[in-house]
């Protein structure tokens, strides 16, 4: 009975959480009020969130967006225009994410008279004290998954129907409940004739993602930037709990100041992993450079859903977040692997969307060089130096199938060591990365890597700077 009463109270609270500009005096008659209430209908996720803090932040974000929109003098006209041109926004099904310099809210918009699927995503950016927004509409001519997956995602999770493209998403059941909003990347696939075809991992936020719905929003007279009323910004008021451990810890603060969701044990494991990084001279130089430039990982957290995909850890360039699948996975190897992705992302000003192939090849080569140098420095006798090598050497996959190139790779590493030892700089070229990337793709058995594009394109090669850091000045790590 008591439980039932609590349910009624909770339902009452949720219903009362309709956020919006429902002010009869401002908008006139009751029908206008109803119209606005319906348009801005949103039910607070409140404490039903699976993760502490994040959904409260999401509520604050959505509240901020709605209340800011309602400061428009022509709000009723605007709402009517929007409904005719685009449809009804589904605020309850929106995705709210925290990015490096802003919050971003993606709101699916349904218009059943036009299509049974989601064709419009109303995108909001909360940056500083300004709200920018723009409704993106699906282009039926798009061919690439990166261009349409968000629409299919909302069709799947907001409308609970299968998109006609056949695109599916790993991990989550088809239900009206979408994955938690803090799930910032989605792994997609299609199933044809019982066969699964990987369609890659896609992240909500990719700065300068190339489609226009990330980065800065296109200017539009109907959707002008609006000042956010005081106190509405979700970043105000400490929505993210202050962390008593991480921010002040001198070791942890070498890579991040936000470990607010980690337990003490997890922070301890992170510290141990960072200490291993410090012991590797070349990597320590890398960390030092990032600190000197004031660059740090925005947040380190645990994301248990990653373990379903078999990943130990993941660095999200969009949100500048490092996630581990669990406490067990907070290891020096995982941290080394992901930290270099952080470094690569910084070197590319965050613009690494679609560059997974070259990111992985470059990271693999970097650590192969670092550890080969350590081993050589030991006179080729101390095998323990390889303990923290994050991944297989790049050529391992070609050892049997292409021994010639496998040996060529080992010889190449040896030549690089000789150069670095002599205090010289080495230049690993676009051609080098693409050459080894092509071979790796050909020989690896990892289906995700097989699907990557290993072309360098506009990517800024980071490895040469990274290697230079380890040998420049009086302290040559390789000597």
């Amino acid at each position: 009975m008591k439980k039932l009463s609590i349910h009624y109270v909770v339902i009452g609270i949720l219903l009362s959480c309709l956020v919006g500009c429902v002010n009869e005096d401002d908008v006139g008659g009751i029908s206008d009020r109803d119209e606005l209430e319906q348009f801005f209908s949103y039910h607070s996720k409140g404490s039903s969130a699976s993760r502490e803090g994040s959904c409260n932040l999401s509520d604050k974000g959505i509240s901020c967006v709605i209340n800011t929109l309602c400061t428009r003098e022509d709000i009723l006209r605007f709402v009517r225009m929007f409904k005719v041109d685009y449809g009804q926004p589904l605020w309850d099904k929106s995705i709210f994410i925290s990015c490096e310099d802003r919050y971003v809210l993606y709101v699916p918009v349904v218009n059943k008279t036009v299509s049974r699927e989601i064709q419009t995503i109303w995108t909001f950016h909360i940056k500083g004290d300004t709200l920018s927004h723009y409704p993106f509409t699906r282009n039926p001519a798009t061919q690439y998954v990166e261009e349409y997956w968000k629409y299919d995602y909302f069709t799947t999770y907001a409308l609970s129907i299968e998109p006609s493209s056949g695109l599916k998403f790993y991990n989550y059941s088809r239900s009206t409940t979408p994955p938690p909003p803090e799930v910032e990347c989605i792994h997609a696939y299609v199933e044809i004739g019982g066969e699964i075809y990987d369609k890659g991992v896609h992240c909500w936020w990719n700065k300068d993602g190339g489609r226009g719905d990330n980065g800065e929003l296109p200017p539009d007279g109907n959707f002008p930037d609006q000042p956010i009323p005081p106190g509405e910004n979700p970043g105000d008021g400490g929505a993210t709990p202050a962390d008593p451990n991480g921010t002040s810890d001198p070791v942890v603060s070498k890579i991040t100041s936000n470990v607010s969701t980690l337990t003490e044990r997890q922070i301890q494991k992170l510290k141990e992993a960072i200490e291993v990084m410090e012991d590797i001279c070349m990597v320590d130089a890398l960390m030092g450079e990032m600190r000197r430039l004031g660059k740090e990982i925005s947040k380190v957290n645990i994301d248990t859903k990653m373990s379903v995909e078999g990943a130990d850890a993941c660095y999200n360039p969009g949100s500048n977040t490092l996630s581990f699948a669990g406490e067990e996975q907070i290891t020096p190897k995982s941290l080394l692997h992901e930290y270099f992705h952080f470094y690569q992302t910084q070197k590319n000003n965050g613009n690494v969307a679609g560059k997974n192939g070259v990111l992985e090849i470059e990271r693999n080569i970097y650590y192969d060089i670092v550890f080969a140098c350590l081993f050589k420095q030991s006179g080729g006798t101390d095998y323990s130096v390889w303990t923290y090598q994050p991944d297989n050497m790049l050529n391992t996959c070609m050892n049997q199938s292409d021994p010639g190139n496998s040996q060529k790779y080992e010889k190449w590493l040896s030549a690089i060591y000789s150069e670095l030892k002599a205090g010289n700089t080495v230049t690993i070229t676009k051609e080098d990365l693409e050459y080894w990337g092509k071979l790796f793709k050909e020989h690896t058995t990892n289906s995700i890597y097989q699907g990557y594009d290993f072309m360098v394109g506009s990517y800024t090669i980071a490895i040469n700077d990274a290697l230079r850091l380890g040998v420049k000045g009086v302290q040559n790590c390789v000597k």
Partner: protein
Amino acid sequence: MKRLFLAIFVSCAFAVLAFAQASNDTLMVKGKYHTYLITKVGIYRPENRLKKILIFPPDREESRWYKVSGSGAPVGIEAKKFLKPYAKELGEIGVYYCADFKGNIYDVYYYFPNFQGCQYYVPFIDILDELAFSIMKNVHSITVTVTPEGEKHISAYEGIKLIPTFINLEKDED
């Protein structure tokens, strides 16, 4: 005296050639201890190529199976000692070696990045064979510690191929 040694060396090389079986891109040559196949991807004992081996450094899963620690003189020093007289002829060499799970090195083989053709290496088979013998018997010992988890898996493998040593014989550095 030097000329005498050279003459002996060349005649030995021709004697070895008599045992060689030639094909287009491989050559089988008998050394003092073992028979080698000379190919552009290496000079190795063919019987060992059939063995299933682990590769060091290991991947994340295999790193839970065993640990390797080293002691003794490095392969590079021994290789230089044996091959220095032929530095100009051999140039750069990669010395590969495999150990069983007791830490015994049971296979040594070679890779020449600037491969000169199969015939070119025939005169050097004896010295390479001597070097392999020395590395296996006297030079480089390692310790392999197999974990309880590794015990479940390693019976399927003959040993571990270790990270190779590359030496430019013409340079003083390793």
